């Protein structure tokens, strides 16, 4: 029963990975941009929430909500003020610029908050758990995170499929020039896509920060896990990232259970590389272009 329990923890952890991955996949889908600072921006959001919580007496919920809104704004400004200039030039520029951003955010956070581990306190919620059977129990908090992830992914999918703006996103993704000819302002769409991506990753970063301690150096790891979820799930598929995240989460928790705590992440990477070797398009690929 131990193993089932561990696997279940992995599934719930996968929800958090998927939440980190969704923004990465959205931005890539809409504008073929791989944001190497994606993980760092999620961690930045956690620090913003921490700063708001410490500065104003507003409670963790409102501080988090404010941080998500702030990251939405930062996303739009970042895209229109900087990243839009790198799109459509050559492939290397966006990679280098976002890598530079990653370095800036990490070192900026160290300067501002120091390299120490921080925590966001959500009270009793963190440790409460619910018994499923006699031997099976899951924490309320991981369960809530998983449900939030599913709801966010479903909402994003609905937004893309059912709304006018979502249609503009898909049109831009399919053919930028044709979309522009149909009167879509691509630059604005890119800005909105980055804004939504950063709002989602902000939520992910804050949920992570409540779950464990966090520090400025964690961004790259979050980026790597998100990337593995995206590739395993299959590019172009939003639901695929959830499956990819779950596969990664289960691999990590089972790996840690089998070989010791230090090996969990390693096993996750190995599973990812195996998928890359035998099914490089992932489980639910919709687009093939990279």
């Amino acid at each position: 029963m131990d193993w089932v329990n561990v696997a279940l923890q992995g599934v719930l952890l996968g929800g958090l990975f998927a939440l980190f991955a969704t923004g990465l996949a959205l931005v890539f889908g809409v504008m073929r941009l791989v944001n190497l600072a994606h993980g760092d921006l999620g961690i930045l959001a956690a620090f913003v929430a921490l700063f708001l919580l410490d500065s104003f007496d507003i409670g963790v919920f409102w501080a988090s909500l404010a941080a998500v809104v702030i990251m939405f704004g930062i996303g739009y400004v970042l895209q229109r003020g900087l990243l839009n200039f790198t799109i459509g030039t050559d492939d290397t520029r966006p990679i280098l610029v976002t890598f530079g951003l990653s370095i800036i955010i990490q070192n900026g956070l160290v300067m501002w908050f120091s390299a120490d581990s921080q925590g966001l306190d959500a009270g009793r919620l963190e440790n409460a758990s619910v018994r499923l059977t006699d031997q099976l129990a899951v924490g309320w908090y991981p369960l809530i995170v998983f449900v939030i992830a599913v709801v966010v992914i479903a909402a994003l999918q609905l937004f893309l499929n059912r709304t006018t703006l979502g249609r503009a996103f898909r049109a831009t993704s399919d053919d930028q020039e044709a979309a522009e000819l149909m009167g879509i302002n691509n630059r604005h769409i890119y800005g909105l896509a980055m804004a939504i991506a950063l709002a989602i990753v902000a939520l992910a970063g804050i949920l992570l920060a409540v779950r464990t301690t966090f520090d400025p150096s964690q961004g790259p790891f979050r980026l790597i896990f998100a990337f593995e979820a995206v590739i395993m799930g299959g590019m172009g598929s939003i639901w695929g990232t959830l499956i990819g995240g779950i596969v990664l989460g289960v691999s990590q928790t089972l790996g840690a259970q089998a070989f010791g705590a230090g090996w969990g992440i390693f096993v996750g990477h190995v599973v990812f590389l195996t998928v890359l070797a035998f099914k490089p398009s992932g489980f639910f690929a919709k687009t093939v272009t990279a």
Partner: protein
Amino acid sequence: MTPPAETPQATAVPAFRVARSARMHRYVLVAFVAVVVALATVPLWAETATTRTLVTFFTLLALAQMWNLLGGYAGLISVGQQAYVGIGAYGVWLIGDVLGIHPFVSVLLAGVLAALIALPIGPLIFRLKGGYFAIGTWVVAEVVRLVVANIQATGGGSGKTIMSAARLPMETRVPGTYYLALAVAVGSILLVYFLLRSRVGLALTAIRDNDLAAQSSGVNVFRAKLLVYVVAAFGCGAMGAVVAMNLLRIQPTAAFSINWTAYAIFIVVIGGFGTIEGPLIGSVIYFALLQTLSQYGTSYMLLLGVIAVIMAAKAPRGIWGFVEKRWDIHLFPVRRELLLESPPPEERKPADRPDAAATETA
């Protein structure tokens, strides 16, 4: 190479030849040799602190050349070259301490080890493109780091002291490491230079300009990229081995640090992307900044990040790109230029080329 003359259209092409060197390049060669010889005398008169500082400079230069070979010429933006730096560093320990081979020789073998490991990894991560390739290289570096940090044999998280090197008397170790570092730096420049002058170089230039067009012109893109990936792994491995020799101590977090790649990217982006001169200038600038500002630590990295972002967004060809564009100077003759040997056809009398005239009327 002469233009084919079978078809009427082709005869309209004037006679040309492909030139790669100019008179200036002889002076550049003389200067290059002079600088290397001058640098070779440094251990004879300088203090240990100076030679050690130069070792750091040489390793950064080699690292930047290798990163530029990947990113600037093959279009493979890697943020995971620390994998091979670390493998090289641990390679010296493995080959020197465990296998008992002389540490000076083990530097070269550590490079070979890195290349051998890169050979199967390349095809796997080539399945990813662009930014996703970049993160893929990072995953590989993390995998290697986790293995090294988690097993007891390599000393786990606390690392190892390289005893085979530490036991060498200081008067051989310090100059020996210096010459190895110089050899790795000069070797990295020569490696890129001769690679670019070879057939592969032409393929690489085509790939850099347009991957798809190169493929459809018959370039084996996969093979060219794999070659570059393995060569860059070799260079980074040898460079990492020299770093380990210089520090005498290896530790997974430092050996596999993303900072290695960050330094390389700063150097290449500031100096100039896709040229041999760029990483040279970039390393000098980076090193000067390092000597004056590194005491500020975090804010220094922040400043470098800001410079890199601005340069990458606004001036992606870097300082050397600006020089090239402004004055058309190329220190290393790796470009192929078309030189016309005869005046263009429209200046000739039509009687000279009856078939050319015929096509015009047709």
